[in-house]
């Protein structure tokens, strides 16, 4: 089932009562989540991700706008009739009930014709438990299980009614690093098996990139970009998206476009082929770490030549396959940033040299307007 938003907006009165202005948690959402996909809602903390989920499931009512499940307008439909399953960040497992009773809890609420016998409920609970592979733990209490196991129980409970939409709010943030990677694969697998349209919220870009079919990048309640993870990474629409995605993060410098050249300081970074006929102006230049190519004999001797980019070498970190070249630059957007270039370990760099010079892969260089921070090139 697909989910469609039309001008969806949620405003809260400010929590600090002294401030009169409202908080816009969700700002004019108008887009569609396609059927049967795993969608990652990505953004920094406090940008309105949880509010967006709560609007989808009906725990919050929108200030403006409408929500459609396929062609049904569900804006006015209460949460329990929307057919959504939700997994909360803290899992919200009932501590006094064992796993089986937790999973059966939603089924016991069914009324009228939908009412199930005890055997049917136990059967369904077992099926849900099998999907998340916890059928051996049915008699355990939540506090007798690890975080990852609790997480699975929470997913099973959300799945047991076969919801039309599965929502997960920061599903991995309470797990340790190793379990996080394991569990995110698990979520991907469960979604693949069940084909339920799934929206999951995270502030961790790596998490979103690794398993989503589609990511929605948010900031301050507004959607900044929607697309396949690789597309969004390769073609960010603005400086925020470019900075938010990727580890190590993109390197940002101030520069300008002048006479068909892209310049950082006095160095011409890229020429006419790249700049085309963009008009002269001040810009931000973002370069992905993998966009740097070490120059032969890159000890800074060729400084000042066209296409060169020269930084002050700080350290070199060899990490097996790749080498991280750490350098600083006077034109950094934020002063004294330690920039990182990832180059193949086959390159030999003299750690004692003061400077380091690179060529740039134009595909990994993005230019943003200094005024609007929107992408120019």
């Amino acid at each position: 089932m697909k989910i469609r938003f039309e001008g969806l907006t949620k405003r809260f009165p400010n929590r600090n009562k002294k401030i009169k202005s409202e908080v816009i948690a969700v700002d004019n959402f108008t887009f569609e989540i396609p059927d049967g996909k795993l969608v990652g809602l990505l953004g920094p903390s406090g940008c309105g991700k949880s509010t967006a989920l709560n609007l989808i499931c009906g725990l919050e009512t929108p200030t403006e706008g409408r929500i459609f499940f396929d062609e049904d307008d569900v804006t006015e439909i209460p949460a329990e009739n929307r057919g959504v399953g939700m997994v909360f960040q803290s899992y919200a497992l009932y501590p006094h009930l064992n796993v089986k009773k937790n999973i059966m809890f939603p089924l016991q609420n069914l009324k009228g014709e939908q009412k199930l016998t005890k055997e049917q409920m136990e059967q369904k609970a077992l099926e849900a438990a099998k999907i998340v592979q916890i059928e051996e733990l049915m008699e355990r209490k939540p506090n007798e299980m690890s975080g990852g196991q609790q997480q699975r129980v929470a997913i099973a409970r959300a799945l047991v009614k076969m919801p039309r939409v599965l929502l997960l709010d920061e599903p991995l943030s309470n797990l340790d690093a190793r379990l996080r990677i394991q569990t995110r694969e698990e979520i991907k697998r469960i979604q693949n098996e069940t084909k339920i349209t799934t929206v999951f919220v995270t502030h961790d870009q790596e998490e979103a990139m690794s398993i989503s079919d589609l990511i929605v990048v948010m900031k301050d309640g507004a959607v900044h970009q929607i697309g396949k993870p690789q597309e969004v990474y390769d073609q960010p629409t603005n400086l925020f998206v470019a900075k938010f995605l990727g580890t190590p993060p993109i390197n940002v410098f101030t520069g300008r476009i002048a006479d068909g050249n892209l310049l950082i300081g006095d160095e011409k970074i890229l020429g006419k082929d790249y700049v085309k006929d963009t008009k002269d102006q001040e810009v931000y230049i973002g370069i992905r770490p993998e966009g740097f190519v070490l120059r032969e004999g890159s000890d800074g001797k060729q400084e000042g030549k066209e296409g060169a980019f020269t930084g002050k070498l700080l350290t070199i970190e060899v990490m097996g396959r790749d080498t991280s070249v750490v350098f600083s630059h006077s034109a950094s957007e934020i002063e004294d940033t330690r920039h990182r270039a990832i180059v193949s370990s086959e390159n030999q760099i003299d750690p004692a040299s003061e400077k380091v010079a690179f060529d740039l892969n134009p595909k990994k260089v993005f230019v943003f307007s200094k005024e609007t921070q929107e992408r120019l090139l």
Partner: protein
Amino acid sequence: MSTDSKETNYTPASPLVKRLRTLKAWLYLLPALLFLGVFMVYPLIDVLIYSFEEGYNSASQTSFGTGWYNYAYVLHDPYFLQAVKNTFIIVIITVPLSTLLALLISLALNSITKLKEVFQTIFFLPYVTNTLAVGLVFMIMFKKTPYTDGLINMILAIFKTGPIDFIDGPYWAKMFVMCFYTIWVVLPFKVLILTSALASVDEVYYKAARIDGTSRFRQFTHITLPMISPMIFYLVITGFIGAFKAYSDEVAIFGTNLNSAGMNTIVGYVYDMLYGDSGGYPSYAAAAALILFAIVFTITVINLLISKNTSIS
């Protein structure tokens, strides 16, 4: 030398050092132990001894002999039996009723958003008011005098009943006032405990329940109640203990001569046996006190067993 001193840090302490440490611990405990011994253990043992001494005279410190005589006397004393009956009626009526009422009030308080603090304060005010003052107010409201029938009887008159003398009238009327008053006095504390217990239940459980289509009633019985059950048990247990030991509440309304009012309680009986007009019988008082102790002990053990069983299932 230096290595030696280092090693002693890691090797297990020698028996002597251990003994010294234990001694030190006991030394720290000594003041508290002394205090407890002098003011609790010694009197308790003394009471136990009194209760088995026949015709003990506190002036001459003499007695005729030992045995179950005091218990037999107390258990056949109609005043004591009346006191036991009164105490049990008060306990059985006021403990469940006040807990239930407190729960309802707390639920209401928890669900309102506006002026929540104001209402909470209002409900807590009786707790900081002196119980004797509250008792006086109750007496004025319920008492029938030659000049006025009292506020409650005026209200009853509207419904064409009464007047009833609640303070000097029939037993059930007096018991009604007594229970009413007891509930009123214990309610604020219970409301306070339960409102904070309710507020401490994480909102997210209700959110999860709402999405799953859980009815309000089922949310209450399957989420709220189990989560606050430790607090409810706490209130019931302390409520039982408190109600069994009631005495001042009765005095506040019916005065010190509780036997003639027929409203005495077990603690009241103990007091009367010691200091009342019919007093001067510490042996009877001791026996009655120990009977009360046995009752409270039994009820508390039962309560604890029940609360343990329910919290496991």
